[in-house]
């Protein structure tokens, strides 16, 4: 009776098939496309983490870039300055942004609607302003270039200077994160988030601590946005204060809206579609943002529930 019941029968083989295809792809495409696929996967993770806070909990955060950028530095700085491993760095890229999300969220979830949007932008701006001026730590707008040491899994070592190995690392982490989020949004906790999105007052009146659950959603989303940033910096071997800028959050907003907010598949499709579109248009238009902006506006006006909404509408 709950909306997702019975979909497992379709989901498990579908997810397996997609994962298998993605795992096989590096044997058929060249290094350029392997890098491109890695990048898409990173933004997929960023988009689905944003979707948890926006699509499922109903809070429009334009501040996710702060956690994305922090995630990048949470890998780069320990690896470069403390000599820690990449694996430790990636763990930190979840923990450090989640900690900051707890702090930012503590204040932000006191506000709602447009005030929430604005306060998240301001927090991200503080982050990017400090990131740019503390060049001794962050490298400023030039950023930090670092070599990502290999990760030792005991049975094998993952050489992160190798593009294909990096692709597999990112694929595995993003796939696991997707499964984690999917289970969460179908879980009792996910039902609480959705209830808050649909009607905050009603949720409160039936006994849900709305502010606490908003904060929880914000922290989880922040941690996963951070992980996306960490993976991004590992794949580029580079972290920069420009990733902290609030407008970077726009990527997640666009992918999620275009694909369909409040579904996990939507942001995945949105990221894949928009990034491919940008990739193919850039050669003869040099105007990717124009197309992205136009697609965003027209989806909002004509198909506010995104690609997923269009697909479900047809099935009805």
């Amino acid at each position: 009776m709950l909306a997702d019941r019975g979909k497992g029968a379709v989901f498990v083989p579908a997810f397996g098939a997609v994962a298998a295809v993605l795992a096989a792809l590096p044997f058929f495409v060249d290094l350029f496309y392997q890098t491109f696929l890695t990048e898409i996967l990173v933004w997929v993770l960023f988009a689905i983490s944003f979707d948890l806070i926006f699509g499922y909990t109903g809070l429009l955060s334009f501040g996710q870039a702060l956690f994305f950028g922090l995630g990048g530095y949470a890998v780069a700085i320990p690896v470069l300055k403390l000599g820690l491993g990449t694996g430790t760095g990636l763990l930190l890229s979840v923990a450090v942004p989640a900690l900051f999300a707890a702090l930012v969220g503590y204040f932000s979830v006191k506000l709602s609607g447009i005030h929430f949007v604005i306060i998240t932008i301001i927090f991200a701006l503080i982050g990017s302003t400090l990131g740019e001026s503390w060049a001794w730590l962050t490298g400023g707008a030039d950023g930090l270039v670092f070599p990502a040491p290999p990760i030792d899994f005991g049975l094998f070592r993952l050489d992160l200077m190798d593009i294909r190995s990096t692709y597999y690392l990112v694929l595995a982490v993003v796939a696991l994160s997707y499964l984690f989020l999917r289970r969460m949004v179908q879980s009792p906790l996910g039902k609480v988030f959705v209830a808050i999105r649909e009607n905050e007052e009603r949720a409160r009146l039936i006994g849900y601590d709305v502010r606490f659950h908003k904060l929880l959603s914000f922290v989880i989303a922040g941690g996963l946005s951070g992980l996306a940033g960490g993976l991004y910096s590992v794949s580029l071997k580079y972290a920069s204060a420009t990733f902290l800028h609030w407008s970077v959050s726009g990527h997640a907003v666009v992918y999620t809206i275009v694909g369909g907010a409040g579904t996990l598949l939507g942001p995945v499709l949105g990221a894949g579609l928009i990034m491919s579109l940008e990739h193919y248009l850039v050669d003869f238009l040099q105007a990717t943002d124009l197309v992205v902006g136009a697609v965003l506006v027209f989806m909002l006006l004509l198909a506010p529930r995104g690609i997923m909404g269009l697909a479900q509408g047809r099935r009805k």
Partner: protein
Amino acid sequence: MASNLAVAVMNGIVWGLILALIALGLNMIFGLLHIINMAHGALYMLGAVAAWYFIELTGNYWLALGTAPLVVGGVGLALERGLLRTIEDKPLVTIICTFGIMLALQQLVLMQFGGTARRIALPISFRFPLFDLQYPAMRIAIAAISAAVMAGLWVFLNKTRYGLWMRGVVQDREMAVALGIPVHKVYMWTFVLGSFLAAFSGVLAAPIVSVDFMMGREILIMAFIIVIVGGMGNLWGSVVTAVMISLIQGVGSIFVVPSTATVFSLGFMILVLLVRPQGLFGE
């Protein structure tokens, strides 16, 4: 030192009056349509860019100041009628939508205008002595024009029928509908007026700052700060806050690095949002 301080104060006032115009447009659109217009900075930039083209064509800054804002007002008209009209009752959707418009406008300008910053020559090159420094008279003219436009706006809002309608809609939308005020027309002209003001300040700022496709990005945030600290829907609060913040930043940057000043003003804004969300001058 005294002359540095005098220049900082002068610059603070001039820049504050420009910011006030931008914030007034943003605040009018918010107060009336309840839209957080993320494209407002892009409209400011568009005004400056349009002015640059007009000056290339005619060589006359004053002609550009008269025409470029009208063109951008037309762009505002098209945006409101074509896109925003259907989603005006959904604040979050309009934020995302105007964000998309911002991306598109910036990119359009990048394609046509290029990525390099360009300068507009001062139309008044006369300078007058200020302590032991020379201060450009153009800046005084800019401040005077800003103030004049604001005075005109005050007269428009308080003395004309359209202005009274606008204030009526802000106070009580349902009552306004009941009284037969054409609310949707008021929305439309408010958005056009807001766009016009953004562009007008863009043209005014153009000789002081350099013109490029990203120039609206930081301004948008400044305008947000001013509108929130001064109080959303409180136009007078925006003007006072704009001059105040600009003065504090201008004078403050003599003593601290600009980024510190920025972080402090952002922190102050968070404090206002949390403690006095109606703004410092709200009720």
